[in-house]
């Protein structure tokens, strides 16, 4: 390679974290939510892990006497999940990411504008079905919950350590299928705690109601904080 004698080359140190623009908006979201006294729970899982089904069961279990709930549904496309939630009468916003693999803080900012924040106690955010990308994007949430359905297998923490390390709680869904699968609950719990000793691991079936008390109990405790 020939060097132009008139030009000189030099190395400039940068050390600047990527995706911080998202974190700034997340901080704004957090500040606004605090003003309204609304807690946000960011629910992350694979497609088909049972996020919407658990949400529907949760809305029913918390009941009308419970906290006032709002929902933000994130999907690549369609209104299907928001329609399901809307049948419960809970205010819901559907965000379509148009191919995007995760929700980010600006999308949540947009979603919050469509919800009656002054009336709400808690907003459940159902993230786009994906075990990787949502982990990297702070939404301004108070708690992150990771769901793993029993058919996905107990070895998932080996493959996707990021999500299991990042969450405040892990919910194993579809526990009613355990008799038909090789899912080892104890092994899964050990792996999660190997990464994240503080995250409780709950085993739940939204279908039979198994474990719903523990999940609703955890939620109620966080909402009191």
């Amino acid at each position, binding site marked *: 390679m020939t060097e132009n004698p008139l030009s000189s080359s030099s190395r400039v140190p940068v*050390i600047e974290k990527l995706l911080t623009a998202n974190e700034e908006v997340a901080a704004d979201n957090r500040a606004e939510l605090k003003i309204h006294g609304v807690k946000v729970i960011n629910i992350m899982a694979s497609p088909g892990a049972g996020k919407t089904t658990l949400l529907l069961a949760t809305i029913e279990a918390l009941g009308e006497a419970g906290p006032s709930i709002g929902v933000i549904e994130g999907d690549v496309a369609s209104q299907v999940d928001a329609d399901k939630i809307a049948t419960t009468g809970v205010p819901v916003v559907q965000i379509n990411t148009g191919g995007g*693999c995760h929700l980010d803080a600006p999308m949540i900012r947009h979603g919050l504008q469509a919800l009656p924040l002054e009336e709400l106690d808690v907003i459940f955010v159902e993230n786009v079905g994906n075990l990787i990308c949502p982990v990297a994007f702070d939404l301004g949430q108070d708690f992150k919950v990771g769901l793993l359905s029993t058919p996905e297998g107990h070895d998932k923490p080996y493959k996707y350590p990021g999500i299991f390390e990042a969450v405040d709680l892990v919910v194993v869904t579809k526990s009613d299928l355990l008799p038909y699968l090789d899912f080892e609950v104890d092994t899964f719990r050990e792996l999660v705690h190997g990464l994240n000793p503080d995250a409780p691991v709950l085993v739940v079936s939204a279908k039979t109601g198994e474990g719903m008390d523990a999940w609703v109990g955890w939620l109620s405790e966080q909402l009191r904080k």
Partner: protein
Amino acid sequence: MHELAVTEDILRIVSEYAERGKAKSVTDIYLVIGELSSFVDDSVQFYFNMMSPDTIAAGATLHFQRIKTRFRCRNCGQEFEPEERNWICPACHALGGDVIAGKEFFVESIEVTS
């Protein structure tokens, strides 16, 4: 994952530093990426080639320094690299540990001409 958003951010940061230093062009961009920030190097370079032509960083080469995941055992303090299906501490055989490396995700430096 979200390589497009990452590439946009790389370009934003690099342009800012290059312009601040009154550089003529950026020839190389050095990134430090932990294994847990899983994204695909080739697709970032692909997006970069598409997005950079009209910028100060046109034609720059991206260099990825990959950082392996490291655990610090909570039981005995030993630091180790977990294997794909083995998170057992080599010193005391406890499972897992605190993640002390592998989450890095930043632009380390740029090579510029002036």
